[in-house]
C-alpha cells in the first residue's frame, strides 16, 4: 500500500495524533528514572559530604544500590512516590545522564571512557540548545509565546526537529576521538527510547528536557563560563 506524500506530511505536522505510553510502562519508568537519579545524587552527595574513609571501597556502590532499590519500594515508602507527586517522572535524557555519570564514578573502566572529555564545543552546544529550549517551554507554559510549543511536542515534526538538531550538532561539532564517547549518544538513545516506548509522557520535549535538567544546564554553563574566565585571568566581576 502506498501512502501519499501529503498524508505523510500531514501526519508529520499533526499535533492531534500523539502516541502516549501505556500506564504500566509509565509506572516502570517512574521508578527506573528516579532510581538512576537517586543513585547518582546519593553518590555525588557522598563524595562531597561523607567522611573521607567512606568515600572509597564498597561504600559508594552500596549507597547507590540502596538508593536505586528504594525507588522500587511499595507506595509511600518509595521516594519515587513523593518525587512523582511533586515532579512526575524525569526525562529520559536526565535518567541516562545520571546513569552514565554514576557509571563513571562506580566503574573505573567505564569511567575512564566516560570521563574522557567529549568535545567541549559539542557539550556546550547541547547545553545551550537545552537552555534555550527550556526558556521557550517555560514561556510557552505561561502562554507568552505566539505558538503553542508544548502542544507541538506531540507531533512527529517536533521529533524530526530534535533529531535534526542533534544530528547537525553531532556531525558538525562532534569530531570525537576514537572511541566515540558515550556522552554523545545520550540524546540519540533518549530519542530512540521515546520513539519506542513514548516515555515519559508521549511529548518529545518531556523526553529530552525536564525542569531539573534545565536548572542543571544553567549551573553547568555558569560554571563553565566562570572557569574559562578564571583560566584566562579575567576578573570574576567586571
Amino acid at each position, binding site marked *: 500500500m502506498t501512502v501519499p506524500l501529503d498524508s505523510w506530511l*500531514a501526519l508529520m505536522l499533526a499535533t*492531534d495524533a500523539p502516541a502516549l505510553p501505556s500506564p504500566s510502562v509509565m509506572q516502570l519508568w517512574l521508578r527506573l528514572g528516579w532510581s538512576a537519579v537517586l543513585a547518582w545524587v546519593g553518590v555525588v552527595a557522598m563524595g562531597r559530604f561523607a567522611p573521607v574513609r567512606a568515600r572509597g571501597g564498597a561504600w559508594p556502590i552500596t549507597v547507590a544500590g540502596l538508593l536505586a532499590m528504594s525507588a522500587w519500594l511499595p507506595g509511600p515508602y518509595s521516594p519515587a512516590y513523593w518525587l512523582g507527586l511533586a515532579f512526575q517522572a524525569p526525562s529520559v535524557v536526565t535518567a541516562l545522564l545520571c546513569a552514565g555519570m554514576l557509571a563513571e564514578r562506580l566503574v573505573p573502566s567505564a569511567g575512564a571512557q566516560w570521563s574522557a572529555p567529549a568535545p567541549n564545543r559539542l557539550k556546550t552546544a547541547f547545553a545551550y540548545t537545552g537552555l534555550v529550549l527550556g526558556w521557550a517551554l517555560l514561556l510557552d507554559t505561561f502562554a507568552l509565546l505566539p505558538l503553542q510549543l508544548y502542544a507541538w511536542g506531540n507531533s512527529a515534526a517536533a521529533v524530526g526537529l530534535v533529531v535534526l538538531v*542533534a544530528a547537525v550538532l*553531532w556531525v558538525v561539532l562532534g569530531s570525537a576521538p576514537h572511541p566515540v564517547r558515550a556522552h554523545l549518544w545520550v540524546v540519540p538513545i533518549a530519542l530512540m527510547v521515546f520513539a519506542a516506548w513514548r516515555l515519559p509522557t508521549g511529548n518529545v520535549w518531556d523526553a529530552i528536557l525536564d*525542569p531539573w535538567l534545565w536548572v542543571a544546564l544553567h549551573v553547568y554553563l555558569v560554571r563553565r563560563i566562570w572557569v574559562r574566565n578564571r583560566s584566562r585571568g579575567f576578573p570574576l566581576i567586571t
Partner: protein
Amino acid sequence: MVLMLPSPVPSAVRRLFFALVAGCAILGLDIWQRPQLPAQASAVWPADTAVPDLGKLQVQAGGKIPMPAGMAAAHASSLLPMPSGDAASLSVFWFSGDRESGPNVQIAASQYDRSTQQWSPARFVVNRFVMAEQLGYGLRRLGNPVAWLDGGGRVNLFVVATGWGGWAASRVLHLRQSSPGRGLAELAFEPVRVLPLSWLWNTSFLVRNAPLPLVDGGMVLPVHFELGIKYPTALRFDKAGEFRGMVRLSQRLHLLQPSLVMESPHTWLAFMRDERPQGKVSVARTTDAGVHWTDLPDLTLDNPDAAVAGLGMAAGQMLLAHNSSIASRGTLDLSRSANGRDWTLAHTLEHGGHDDEYSYPAMAWVDGALWVTYTVDRHRIAWQRLAAAPLAGPKP
C-alpha cells in the same frame, strides 16, 4: 558505556551517514507508533428530539442530592446523561469531604433512577490513596470531577488532582470505568494517566466543565491553566478515550473554566469565567471545529469571578447558567440566546442574599428535560429539572 564504531575514526561523512540512518530509524519508529489522523471534529447536539421553546422552561422538580454520610463539604458537580437502557437516567459526580481541599476529599456520585424518580444514596467512587497506589505516585488533593461516556459506553472521569502545592499545582487525572457495569453500586474506576499538558512538572491545569461530544464518539474537553495567570485550553479525545492533542482557546490571560457550546457542528463558542473584578462573561469562537479560536468581545453579562455552564440545544438555541451579579454568587440565573451575544433571562434558578452561594452550575439535556445541578454554600449539591410541559415526578 562506550560504543565502538569501526575503524578508522569516523569522518564527517561517516557521521553524516550514521546520523541519517539513526534519524530515519527514530522518525520511522515514531510515526509507526502513532494513531491515524483524526477526521475533522464535528459536534453533536445533546437532544435527539425537537427542542421546546427555551423561553417556556419551567421547573418541574428539584431538591438536594443525598450526601455521603458524615461529609460536610460538597462542590463542583458534573452531570452525565446515561444511555436509555440504563436503570438510571443521569449520574452526578462531585467532590466531598470534611472541607474543600481537605485530605479526606473523595469523588462522590449519585444516580437518578428512572423507575423511582429518586436520587440514589451517594457513595464515593474515587479515593486518592487508591488511585495513587495504582499510579505509583501520590496525589495530594482531589478536586473538580468531569464525567464523560466514551464510544465504548465506559464512564470516564477527569479529576483535578494536586501535586505539592494548592490548586495551582493541579493536574488532570484521567480515570476510566473498571467495573463491568455503570450502576452506582458497582461503579469503579482505574487511572489511565495524568494528562500531559504542561512542561513545568505537568502543572497547573484544571478541569471543570462538561466536554463537547463529537459525532465520531470522541469529545473536546475544556480545561484551564491557573499558575499566576489563567488561560483556557481545549483537549481532544477519540472515541476510545485516548488523548489526541490540545489547543489554546484564548490569548487573554485572565480567563478560566471554559464551557463549550455548539452553534453548529463546526462552529463553537467557549464561555469563560473572568477572574478580574467587575468582570463580564468572556467568550471565544471557533469556526473550524476547534483548530483555531478567536477572542470575541465580552458579553454584557456580569461575572463575579464565578463558573458558568453553557449548552447548545439546537441551531439558534443556547442556554447559559451563570451568577449574574457583581461580587456575589447569591443569584444563579439561566439565560437563553439565539446568537451567543445577546442574552435574555429565561429563569432565575436561585436568588439568595449577598453572602449566599449558588455556584458552579452544570447542565445536561436528558429525556426531554433540562437538568441543572449546582453547589449550595459549598455544603450541598442542589438539582432542578426544567421542561416546557409538566412531567411526572416529585414537586420541588
